[in-house]
């Protein structure tokens, strides 16, 4: 909790500064857009958190998103399969991807960085090859039902009359539900405890009777499934998929959100709230850069600097707290 205060602080500062700098920032329209983007990125951030908690990493998320987003219209429009079959196929694919990662990492003891780096290349290649680099679209009628997922909440059954529903993206609801489930899973179930334990010390966890291989595979499967689902949402939202670039770098955004939110890449640590805040901060920054008329080209630099500042402040706060604790105690002892 305390860890998240720092990033919450930065978030608020940027928020207020932007609101002061541009009165249009707080319009319902802008807030809706911001919430939508933060939610989409928050979702994949939660996915990668499961893997990061085990001390692993998943660099293939962006490519998997690209593959899933490319395949669905390919299956449904080009191959004329029913939508349901298409959806089942992409989730099955995501599951297999996670399973493969997990098995390679646990059985063959390959390094997660290497396995998922290869995944990054392989899934991108497959996506491009299957449709010959052709742009895929979600404009077709078939997908209109799914589009509710990236619309506003008033389109949900029974919500049409609710006044605020129009201003809240469905993706935000999805994020909340996913966040709560993940939080409960991590903190209230034995599996979450197992993940946290093995993330710290896999050997000790194995010696305590935890099937660490199975748990690690599970983490990769969860990550890939959430990424696949995230890919679907992104695709529905943007509508147009370029197989060679859709999702590029998303893994870095997801990992950055998780790190900003307090996950340690050494494993064993992670807060879902933090990740959501991390994702929100990054999207807010991009929005603020637009709103405040900062040079577009500087955008990556600004984001990089804020993340860096975030982790530096985090580290300094931790040290300061430790020192204060020591001094306080010294005084108590002395007294």
């Amino acid at each position: 909790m305390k860890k998240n205060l720092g990033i919450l602080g930065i978030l608020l500062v940027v928020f207020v500064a932007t609101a002061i700098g541009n009165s249009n920032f707080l319009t319902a329209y802008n807030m809706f857009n911001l919430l939508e983007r933060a939610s989409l990125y928050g979702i994949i951030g939660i996915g990668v958190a499961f893997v990061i908690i085990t001390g692993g990493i998943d660099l293939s998320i962006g490519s998997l998103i690209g593959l899933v987003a490319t395949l669905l219209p390919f299956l449904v429009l080009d191959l004329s399969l029913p939508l349901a079959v298409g959806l089942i196929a992409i989730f099955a694919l995501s599951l297999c991807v996670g399973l493969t990662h997990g098995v390679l990492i646990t059985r063959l003891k390959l390094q997660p960085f290497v396995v998922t780096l290869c995944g990054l290349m392989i899934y991108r290649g497959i996506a491009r090859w299957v449709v010959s680099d052709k742009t895929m679209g979600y404009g077709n009628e078939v997908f209109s039902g799914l589009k509710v997922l990236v619309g506003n909440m008033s389109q949900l059954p029974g919500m049409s009359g609710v006044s605020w529903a129009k201003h809240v993206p469905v993706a935000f609801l999805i994020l909340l539900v996913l966040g709560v489930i993940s939080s409960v899973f991590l903190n209230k179930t034995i599996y979450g405890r197992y993940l946290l334990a093995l993330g710290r010390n896999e050997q000790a966890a194995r010696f305590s009777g935890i099937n660490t291989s199975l748990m690690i595979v599970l983490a990769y499967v969860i990550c890939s499934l959430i990424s696949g689902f995230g890919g679907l949402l992104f695709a529905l939202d943007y509508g147009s998929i370029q197989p060679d670039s859709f999702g590029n770098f998303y893994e870095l955004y997801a990992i950055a959100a998780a790190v900003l939110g307090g996950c340690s890449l050494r494993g064993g640590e992670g807060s879902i709230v933090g990740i959501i805040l991390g994702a929100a901060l990054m999207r807010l920054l991009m929005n603020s850069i637009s709103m405040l008329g900062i040079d577009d080209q500087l955008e990556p630099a600004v984001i990089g600097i804020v993340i860096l500042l975030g982790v530096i402040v985090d580290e300094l706060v931790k040290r300061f707290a430790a020192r204060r604790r020591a001094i306080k105690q010294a005084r108590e002892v002395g007294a």
Partner: protein
Amino acid sequence: SGNRTEESSQPKVAYITNGIASFWNYAERGAKDAAEEFDVNVNVQMPGTNAVEDQKRMCQDLLAQGIDGMAISPVDPDNQGDLLAEIAQRTRLITHDSDAPESDRLCYIGMNNYTAGRMCGQLVKEAMPEGGSVMIFVGRLGQANSRLRRQGMIDELMDREPDENRYDEPSAGEIKGEKYTILDTRTDGFDFGKAKAQAQDAVAKYDDLGCMVGLFVYNPPFILDAVREADKLGKIKIVAFDEDEKSLQGIKDKEIYGTVVQNPYKYGYESVRVLAGLARGDNSVIPENKILYIPARQIRNDNVDEFRAELDRLSSEASADTDNPPDAKNDASTEKSVTES
């Protein structure tokens, strides 16, 4: 730019490209010149690799700030309907470079990439009248403009009827026509190392390669280098696209047969001029057929000097920041519609 005291009354317009490229730097200059001339504030934004996403975000953020008009080159007009509708609903929308006729855009400025592709095909035919084999190099096929460009060229070489929806998949292998054969299409994803390697590999691979066509601005210089290094100048014909300085020099030196140039400066200039007019309630800036045609041109050895002089004039004027805008309006022919043989 702009007069500070007028800030509040000065219309704000936006000019969105479909990527980052030197091509668009010319367009940006045109947009800024026009902004000065017509006293509007223009915000030029270029999306990065995830162009569809970036376009959506940039447009939404601009809309949130409240603008008086937007010119956009949609990456994928067929599938960006929602975004275009959102823009049209909140401000004045025009398209440039790549049209979206199905949308509620008020006007399209530019030409058709498919047509430009066919013009490029004509150059190949001229360079290699007896026929032969052709390799195509392009950054990405994912965006509409490059796909159309390539298709136009292929259709021209295959002597097919114009059909913008045709797509010869690059993985389908060689495309054989009566005289011309398209051996392969190679993409590089904007990785210059790969672009260079692709060109070199093609030169190495085929003994009887007739012509190499580079469809993105940076491709022809790499092709030229590769052919030169392999001592095959003249043996392998080169046809370019866009106006990279090295390409133009190559045309002058007769190492490159020719290139097709669009007029990005005018895309920018005209877009802002039209948006400025619209923002002030002057609807006469829009031609009847809603298309402001800016033709592409073929540049060969005979007119390359003239064209370079024109470019030089543009850049020296831009850097000298004179009040005289380049002679832009003369070439913008509003009377013709876009049908090209």
